[in-house]
Each structure stands twice: as C-alpha cells, then as structure tokens.
C-alpha cells in the first residue's frame, strides 16, 4: 500500500505538530509504549545475561531455567538476585540484572515480615513495596501495560463494530436504519458496569487469565459499541448525498467500494478525534472494575488493585496510593492532551474540503 498523504492530511499533521502539548504528549506516549513493550528487559526478576561455566544464558524470555543449571540444587526457577550475590567476586561467572530486579508477583519479605516498605533505592524498590512486599514499580509497569493493551484492543473492536453498523445505517437508511436505531436505543440503556459485573462474576474460575481478560474485553465491547454508531451514521448520511458519492455510483462502484473507499476516508476525521477519548474511558473502566474487585483475577498486577490497596493503607503506606494515582493521572492526561490536539488539528471548520 502506498502511503501518500493528501494535502489536507499533511496540513492536519503540521497543525498537530504545532500544538506542542499534544505533540510532546504523543512522543511521550510513544516512548512509554515502547518501554512497556520491552518491560521484561528492565523490570524483571530474571537476569538479562548470566555467564556460568563458560556458557551464556539469556533467561529473560522463554522457559524457566531451574536453579540446578547454576549449581543451586533446586528444580524451580533460579533466584537471580541470590545468584548474583553468590557469584560476586568471580570473574568467570557473572549475572547482569535488570535495573528493577523484581517481578510483579514475588513477595520480598524484608526482615522476615510482609509489610509495605517505603521506597528503597539500595534494595531496588524505587517506589517501595505494597502490603505483601511486592515491588510497586514492577506492578505499575505490568499493570499499565495490561491496561493500555486492553484499551487498544477495546478501541479497535468498538470501532470496527461501530463503523460497520454506523456506516450501514447511514448508507442504507430506511427500515434498516430505523430498526437499528431503536435497537441501539434499547441496548445502550443497559447499564454497562452492572452488566460487566454480572457477566464477569459467572465466568468459571478454571479459565486461564488470558481467557478471563478476553471475556472481560468482549463483554465491555458488547455494551460500548453503540455510541460510535451515531457519529458514523450522521457522517455517512451527510457524505452520501455529496456529489462525489453520486459520481462514484454513476461510474458503477459497488456498495462496499463506496463505503470503504470513498465515504470512510472522509469521515475518518471524526473517528480519529474520538480515539484517544475512547482509550481514556477504557483505561478508566478497567481500573474501576479492578478497584471494585471485578476485573482481572488476583494476583494480576493492575492499577485498580494498587489504588484499592493504597486507599486501604492511606495513613500507613501513602507511597502506594501516590504511585498508583500519579501514574493513572499522568497516563490519562497524556492521552487526553493528544486527543485535544487531534481534535483541534482535525477541526473541519479549518480544513474541510466541502463547505
């Protein structure tokens, strides 16, 4: 596929770049996404590289390497922090640990007691630990990654359904439009959060975490696609009566071709401006569900779960709620800034072709 930008698009992009807040937010989010994708490399209890008896090991990805491989005499996963201390002083054998040498699940009982500990740079707990001694930074990183991935998947699914149904309603009109409108009116009045809670509480626990996340996604999408259809429907209605659509039809283009080749690119502007806000609401929703205990199963790291712990320990461990809250606010602010900038730069009052 050729990537040619129309003059309008190029103008919009230039305008977007000129809005500094939005542009830098976009760069920051891009950098954050990249970091989160590679989270295993910098927040992990597994070492980056281990040199042992002349062999190099890269434990980060793939199957676990049992402790017996490094002469530790146990069959479960190697404790690399422990290994590093054992190998300290040896030139032959060495371990390189990630900057944050903890995974989001392990309980680090300091002094033999599980309790929240304040940030401790020497020990590698840069944001402290939560109530069961798990590293907060690790849980934040993996929790945010899950939330972002979830939000992206949510957005894509909602848009695919929203666009197909919305455009069809607008394009075909008539009885099809009428019936779907009524259906959507009824459907969109089903309280979304309650439905998620009800449906999610009857999912069998045997299902794996991935399956549970997917079910949660499906349920959320099922009750959220409706709002998009309205915008797409009106936009399509508007575009349908334009001359260029008539021309395309006269030239013999089929329905599909007209919708996807001609109408869709012209209504894309509306779509794009909504995207960041959909993401914001998806992150907020999944965090709220976790906070209420209906989201991801224990002990999956998540922002909502951290917030819940934080509010439960406001006085004794303020660092929990501060970390979680700051992350959530920053994340949502960045995405909202991007959204605002996109909305402004795509404003049809300035750059529409047809007036």
């Amino acid at each position: 596929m050729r990537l040619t930008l129309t003059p309008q698009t190029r103008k919009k992009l230039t305008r977007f770049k000129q809005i500094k807040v939005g542009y830098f937010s976009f760069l920051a989010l891009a950098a954050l996404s990249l970091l989160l994708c590679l989270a295993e490399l910098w927040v992990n209890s597994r070492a980056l590289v281990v040199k042992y008896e002349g062999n190099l090991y890269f434990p980060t990805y793939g199957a676990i390497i049992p402790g017996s491989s490094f002469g530790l005499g146990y069959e479960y996963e190697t404790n690399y922090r422990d290994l590093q201390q054992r190998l300290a002083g040896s030139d032959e054998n060495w371990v390189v640990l990630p900057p944050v040498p903890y995974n989001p699940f392990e309980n680090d009982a300091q002094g033999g007691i599980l309790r929240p500990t304040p940030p401790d740079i020497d020990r590698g707990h840069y944001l402290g630990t939560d109530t069961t001694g798990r590293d907060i930074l690790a849980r934040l990183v993996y929790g945010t990654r899950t939330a972002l991935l979830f939000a992206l998947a949510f957005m894509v699914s909602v848009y695919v359904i929203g666009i197909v149904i919305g455009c069809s309603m607008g394009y075909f009109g008539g009885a099809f439009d009428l019936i779907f409108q009524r259906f959507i009116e009824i459907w969109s009045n089903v309280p979304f959060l309650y439905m998620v809670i009800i449906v999610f509480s009857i999912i069998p626990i045997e299902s794996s975490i991935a399956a549970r996340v997917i079910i949660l996604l499906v349920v959320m999408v099922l009750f959220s696609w409706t709002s998009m259809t309205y915008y797409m429907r009106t936009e399509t209605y508007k575009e349908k009566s334009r001359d260029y659509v008539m021309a395309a039809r006269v030239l013999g283009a089929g329905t599909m071709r007209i919708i996807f080749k001609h109408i869709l690119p012209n209504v894309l502007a509306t779509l794009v401006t909504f995207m960041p806000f959909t993401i914001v609401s998806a992150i907020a929703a999944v965090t709220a569900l976790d906070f209420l205990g209906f989201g991801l199963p224990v002990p999956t790291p998540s922002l909502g779960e951290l917030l819940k712990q934080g509010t439960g320990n406001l006085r004794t461990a303020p660092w929990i709620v501060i970390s979680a809250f700051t992350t959530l606010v920053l994340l949502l602010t960045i995405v909202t800034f991007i959204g605002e900038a996109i909305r402004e730069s795509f404003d049809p009052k300035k750059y529409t072709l047809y007036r």
Partner: protein
Amino acid sequence: MLRNTHAYLLLVFATLLLASCGGSDAPTEESEFAPYDNRAEVAQYYADHPDFFRFKTRSDLPTDLQWQDGSELPEIGSPDAKKGGMETIRLQDFPRTLRILGPDSNGSFRPWLLDYTTMALGHRHPDLMDYFPGLATKWAVDREAKTIYVELDPLATWSDGVPITADDYLFMFWMHRSSYITAPWYTNWYSTQYTNITKYDDHLISISTVSEKPDIDSKALELRPLPRHFYQEVGPDYLERYQWRFPPTTSPYLIEPGDLKKGRSIQMTRNTEWWAKDKKHFRYRFNVDKMNFIVIRDTAKVFEAFKRGDIDQFAMNLAEYWYEKLPNDDADVANGYIHKKLFFNQRPRPPYGLWINTAQPLLDDQNVRLGLQYATNWDLVIETFFRGDSDRLNTANDGYGPFTASHIKARPFDINQAQEAFARAGFTERGPNGILMREDGTRLAFTISSGYESLKDVLTILKEEAAKAGLEYRVEVLDGTSGWKKVQEKKHEIHFAAFGYSLELYPRFWETYHSDNAYDKAFLDNGEINPARQIKTQTNNLETLAIPEMDRLIDAYRASPDADEMIALAHEMSDLHHDYASFVPGFYNGFFRIGHWRWVNYPANFSHKHASNHLQYFLHWIDEDERSATMDARNQGRAFDPVIESFEQHRSR
C-alpha cells in the same frame, strides 16, 4: 400549560415507581401469604410418633433423681457494668435472611440472632465448662436411661410475653425434624440423636438421647426452644414466609419494626423487660442498650470508621492492624483514646486450612493430596504474614484437650517430598513455566477459593511458594457470602476457610467426615462404591470425604459412652484423616486482640478462659458520658494514660 401537566404526570409516575421500589419490604406479611395453620398437623405428628413424644404426669417421675442446678458457679462479667449506650458493629455482608434455619441461615449474622444471644436450658460456664441454668431451674441425669430431666423456669417468657412451656420444646423437635425447613443437618441431628421427649407438665420435661455419652447433659441442656405460637404457619412455604420475620425470642436483644433496612443496617434494641435480666449469670452481661449493625464490606474502611470513632471496637487479630495500622505509638493509642487489649484463651481452634474437595478430578488422587500438603508453605505465612504470633495447626480438631491427637504433626513445607508425591501421581515433567505436567499435558493446577477478603495475601504467599514445588494455585477471592455458598454447593476445588467451633468437650467427626454428608448413598449394601451416587450439598463435609472405615469409626464414636474409648477413636480418626491428606492444616491464634475506644469498658480480667472473641459473652459496657468526654479531649489535645494490656492468665504456650 399542556407541557406542564405532562411534566407533572411524569414526576408523579416517577415518584410512584420509586415508592414501589423503596417500599417493597413494607407490605404486610399476612397479605402476601395464604393463611396456614399447622397445629392439627403437629398434633397428628405427635400422635403418629407416640414413642418419641410422650405425655405423662409428675407422679410418673422417678424418685431417685439427683438434681443439680449449677447455681454455685461464679458470676460472669463485672458488677461494675452499667447498662446503656449504643454500639455500632460492622457486618461484612447484609444477612440473606432472618430465619435461623434453612438455606442461607448459617451466615455471619446468625450469632447475633441465635448463638450469642438466645437462651438454652443451660449454658457452659466460660471458665469451668460446667452448666449454669438458663431456661431451666434444675436438671437431673439418668445415665442408664440416657435421659435428662429438666425443670423449666416458670418465669421464662418469650419476648412477646407468652410463657415458655414444655410445648415449645415438643414443637422444637417437630420443626427441626420437618422437611419444610430444608436444613438436612438439623433434621438428621434431631431425628437420630434423640429418642424421646416427655412432657410431665408445663414446666417439667425429660429428653432421652440415643447414646450415653460423657457429656450427655449437653445434649439436652443446649437445646433452645422455638415459639410454637409464632411458627404456627410453618408449612411448605416456610422459607419464603419466614424469610424476614423476626421471631419472639429468649434473647435480650430485639429487632423492632422498622429497624431492619435491607442491604444497609439493622438495629437491635435491648429488651428492658427481659425476664432473665436479674438472673445470676446474666445480670452483668448484655449491657449495651442498642446495637447498630452497618454493612461495610471492606475491612480497611472498617478500620477507618473505627479510627474516626464511628465504630466502637475493632478486632485486630491480623498483625497488619495490631503492628502497622494501630501501633502502640499511634497518637490515639499513646494519648489513651484507644485502648489495646490482648487476651490469651483456650478453646477448640477454628480449623483454618485448605479443604480439598476429593470429588474433583486429580484431587481424588491420594498422591496429589500428599503433594499439596508438602507444597503448601504455612510456616512462611505464619512467620511473615502473622509475624510469628499464630501457631501451626496440626489437625482439624486442635484445642480439645485429650481428644486432640497431639502426636500428629502437620506436614512441613518440603519441595522434595512434594515432588516425589506428585511424581507418584504421574506429574514428572516441568512445563515451560515451571509447573509440573503429566505426559498427556495435564497441568498440576488447582483453584483455591476463599471468602476471606482480609486474608487474600495469605493465598498469594501460598501461590508463590507452591510454584517452587511445581504446583500452580489459582486464587479466587470472593465475598464472604458467595464463598460460603460455593462450598456449600460443593463447587470448590480447594477452599480456604474455617468453622467456628462452639465450646464442646470433644470434637465432632460426623459432620465433616461421614459419607452420609458427602453423597446420597455413597456405598452400596455390599460395601462397594455406589456408581450412581450424587454429591450432597449444604453439608459441612467440604472434603467430600467418604471412607467406609471412617464411617465405622464415626459410628462407634457417636455410640460410645466412655471417654477413654472416644479418645482412642478420635485419635484413630485423626490418624486416618491425616493419612488421607484431604485437609492441609493452616494456623490458629491462641489469643484474640482488639482495639476499643476509651468509653468501652471491660471487666478487670477482660474475658473468660474459653471465650472465642470479645463480643461473645457481651461483657463490655459503654459509657456515653465518656464518649463525649473522650472526643472533646481529643479535639482539644488533652491526653489520658495509654492502656495497652495483655491478659496472659490462660496462656497455654
């Protein structure tokens, strides 16, 4: 104008709708259900069971009876106690029913409706274990006839003023044996454990039990009558009809009309006309005038409410609260506004541990269960989560003195032994994430469910440790009511829970280990496993344990009159249970500890030897004057002497 009318109509409609929603608990109960009267049915039942329900006269009474009345037992509570005040108590879930029998009735509110508050014929003294009189004035035991004669207190009345007579005890048997109540445990207990109740006159009864046990007196004395005049309408629709009715009661606390706000709060008010208010063993107890129960789900929020003074007392058995959230140097503690009390007790220990449902695939394999025993690191939980304050439970029946099989030690966390056991069950290879697998790809993974939200961290520790032995625990934390429902329906794989055991001389085995409570007809007559057997729900056999040998021992135990023989049998059963490995013993607390505001007062010894918690015997009293004085002092920054006390007179370790 038209538009205005329209809006007005809408508003009226909306109000109607709201009214009909909000008032749904108001409609008169009589109109909802068709009239029903079971008096004829009950009389017929008595007539149909002439051996069980007998009617005699006082002249038929044996003359050589040795009467006792327990009146010499020391008083309970403190003579300093003052009546009055209101205490706010937290409920984790709103009760699903006010019934004390039938589905959902065994919830966390039941102690307030029944166990802690209502009167039995006699009660065990919380220091001495002997019985002091409740609804009875005196009793006599005829061991040979397995019969207890009880003289009822003629002054005893229900809270509505109706006298309590022998008929209420006859009716109690009818109701518990009736199928209407859908409570198989009670129906079984009242059908199989008793052989007769005889009414001599309105205030003299005798009760005969099926076997002569060392504590035969408890079988009769712990019975609590049911108000026959209130349960006249018990019939096929008992569950719905009585769902939210508060019965006339022997309890000092009543729920008055309008004091039950569904889903939100319940108020119980002290009955100032309570007939037993001046009785020796009751007069210094039940001091608070009003108990206000509010629903707060989240324990952390309860603590915040307590710190604000909205809740008067807070149980701090969890180390997190005792050491971290309310340390001795906390301002409220150091300034003496909140007192901290630690009390060591001795009593049957609630068996906190993992109840393995042996009816589930893989868990029916003895080797898998053995592996679970070694792969579950309770010692680490006790050390890191409970900070060494708790102790490891060794059997499911610890704390019963000689009846506890103290030679049994719970299996320690041992990765090698766990792996050996798992290997015997075919789990030899570790998968890519370190979890053991069979050759056919079956993973060694189980779900631990629990209704203890405040102990969820315990489960994550167990999960992390189990992974070292190649075992995956999936953790499912439910709210209390759903957790209990799940095990009662036997849908769990492994459940983390404990029963609150009442104060008894010896443990019960039938409820938890007899095959009758695991399946409908677990074995065929020739002793083979019944291929068509169905799991029995709503019983306490959470392990779905069905072993013919265990059944035999339980039957012998239930029939034995001799304490020594029972002890031997109890040890044998505990050994069998230990070998079967279907319960991973967890931990117990040899104490309870609380924080309470200054205006809450306790007797000088704080509590009694066999108490299980601070509320059970209602020993405390609330001083409303002190409440305002304390809050004023707190606002003005005036301090009192801090009070942090430890009561070790009953410490066993």
